[in-house]
């Protein structure tokens, strides 16, 4: 063998090994609880209090109440209800890189909803991502998480869904082009990325931790937004909870990292955020997370919130570039801030300062604080701009409220005030452009 030929063969072998390792890492990801160590056992073998089903507070409740609680813990309503639409009738659009997909009607209507489905068909859809006619469902439906739910819990949810008002509303077809419109490809996806196993508790961990794991991983499906996606659109569990995206908003790092994640949050901070959507000095839940709080976590019992907090505080720290160390306090004097953005400052003084204050500490209520808030310290300013566009809450109800400035200001103006806010109160000034805001308006 000539040296030249040998070199080529060595190079070929190296490329092959690299490709195999790359494919292996792409296709084989750690399971949701792999980080915890210990031994995962069948639920029936776990020595400790009950982990699945409803919490102790609902021990004597009727099956429909229990099913409703579980449907809230799994937050079915958020995706299966369109803006201004009837509950659970579907039609909410999700814009994905390959097209728009609409959630289906899951009311008991027999023609357009799931009234005619058998329990086995419902279980198969939730656990395996297979529709009634055997068609493969897209993982926008988080079956890779729901697959961990027990049969009993899935059927309790089904029981509740059969009691909600039936709505006759046809499902909307998705707009995926080739090859993404080939549903059978999802069977391959599911083979690798849907574990298709029910929840298995860790024997060495407490019942509270395991209950929290069940609520976070199976029911709450937190990782669907908070875990970054791989090239194959699977949850990259090697960077579990290190931050992802949801409908134009950034879903931030919720690992134990003290700078990038929530490692510095106290259990009270976390519990308050989940139960009320606000933790003092940490910011308010906004965008899709505000919905998750309103429709799901705020309706959970204190013992379940405590369990989720216990579990979340054990997630190994992962640092992420998008979530740097946060800036400290901002100056209270207006003139002391950034001077290179007079347009943004002018808007801030007219529309923002009377609530948020020039110090960013909040002028009226503590939930208006901008400093120490992850969104304000995110140099993409995605969530700041989305918040300015969409606002939050309603003035008729208590809780966090901010008006939407979508109609009041141009793309240029919203970009400039978002950039002013990150420069004055955050770790790194953002460079949002009018074109970015135009795209955000369509989310």
């Amino acid at each position, binding site marked *: 063998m000539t040296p030249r030929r040998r070199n080529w063969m060595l190079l070929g072998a190296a490329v092959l090994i690299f490709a195999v390792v790359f494919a292996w890492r792409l296709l084989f990801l750690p399971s949701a609880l792999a980080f915890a160590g210990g031994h995962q056992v069948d639920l029936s073998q776990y020595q400790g209090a009950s982990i699945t089903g409803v919490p102790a507070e609902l021990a004597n409740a009727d099956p429909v109440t229990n099913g409703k609680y579980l449907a809230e813990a799994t937050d079915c309503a958020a995706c299966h209800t369109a803006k201004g639409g009837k509950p659970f009738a579907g039609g909410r659009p999700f814009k994905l890189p390959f097209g728009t997909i609409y959630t289906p009607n899951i009311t008991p209507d027999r023609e357009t909803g799931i009234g005619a489905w058998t329990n086995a068909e419902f279980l198969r859809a939730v656990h395996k991502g297979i529709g009634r006619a055997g068609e493969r469902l897209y993982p926008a439906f988080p079956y890779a998480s729901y697959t961990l739910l027990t049969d009993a819990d899935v059927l309790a949810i089904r029981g509740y869904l059969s009691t909600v008002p039936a709505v006759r509303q046809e499902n909307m077809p998705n707009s995926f082009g080739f090859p993404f419109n080939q549903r059978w490809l999802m069977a391959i996806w599911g083979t690798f990325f849907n574990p298709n196993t029910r929840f298995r508790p860790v024997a060495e961990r407490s019942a509270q931790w395991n209950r929290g794991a069940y609520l976070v991983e199976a029911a709450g499906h937190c990782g669907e937004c908070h875990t970054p996606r791989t090239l194959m659109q699977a949850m990259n569990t090697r960077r579990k909870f290190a931050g992802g995206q949801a409908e134009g908003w950034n879903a931030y790092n919720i690992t134990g990292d003290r700078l990038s994640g929530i490692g510095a949050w106290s259990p009270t901070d976390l519990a308050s955020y989940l139960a009320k959507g606000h933790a003092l000095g940490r910011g308010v839940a906004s965008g899709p997370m505000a919905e998750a709080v309103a429709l799901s976590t705020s309706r959970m019992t204190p013992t379940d919130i405590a369990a989720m907090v216990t579990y979340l505080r054990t997630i190994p720290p992962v640092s992420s570039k998008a979530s740097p160390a946060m800036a400290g306090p901002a100056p209270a004097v*207006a*003139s002391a801030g950034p001077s290179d953005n007079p347009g943004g400052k*002018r808007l801030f*003084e*007219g*529309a923002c*300062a*009377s*609530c948020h204050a*020039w110090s960013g500490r909040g*002028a*009226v*209520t*503590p939930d208006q604080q901008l400093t120490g808030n992850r969104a304000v310290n995110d140099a993409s300013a995605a969530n700041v701009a989305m918040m300015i566009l969409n606002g939050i809450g309603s*003035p008729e109800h*208590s809780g966090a*409220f901010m*008006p939407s400035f979508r109609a009041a200001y141009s793309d240029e103006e919203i970009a400039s005030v978002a950039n002013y806010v990150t420069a004055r109160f955050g770790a790194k000034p953002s460079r949002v452009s009018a074109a970015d805001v135009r795209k955000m308006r369509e989310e």
Partner: protein
Amino acid sequence: MVSMRVNDEMTEVAVDADTPLLWVLRDLLGMTGTKFGCGIAQCGACTVHLDGVAVRSCRLPVGEVGDRAVRTIEGVGSTPVGARVQQAWLDLDVIQCGYCQSGQIMAAAALLAANPEPDDADIDAAMAGNICRCGTYVRIRDGIKRAAQHG
């Protein structure tokens, strides 16, 4: 039951803690000098002081007041700065229709208490959130400067 200090007097009101302070002032305490404008903290008509700082009372839950002293347009004249601002407003006929003006006076008094000699940029930064449909902004600016000179 919520108890708080309004214009130097302790008062008790039977309301839910999430009732906005503006509702308490106007509907329960009968102090109608403070106006309702937009209800979303975007116009400034409802401005009052909490420990001397200008705050939008339409978005302030009364339960958040705590032991901070509330001062309204009815009581601002008993503070030296508030009295000067009111006199300057009279001297210059700042008011046109008047609806926003209790908010303007409260914001101006809070500004002067924190910064006795504000320049135009300071006035903009403190007053831009107080909207006047009659467009009395030029006289408001002059009024603040006059009150500052007479300090």
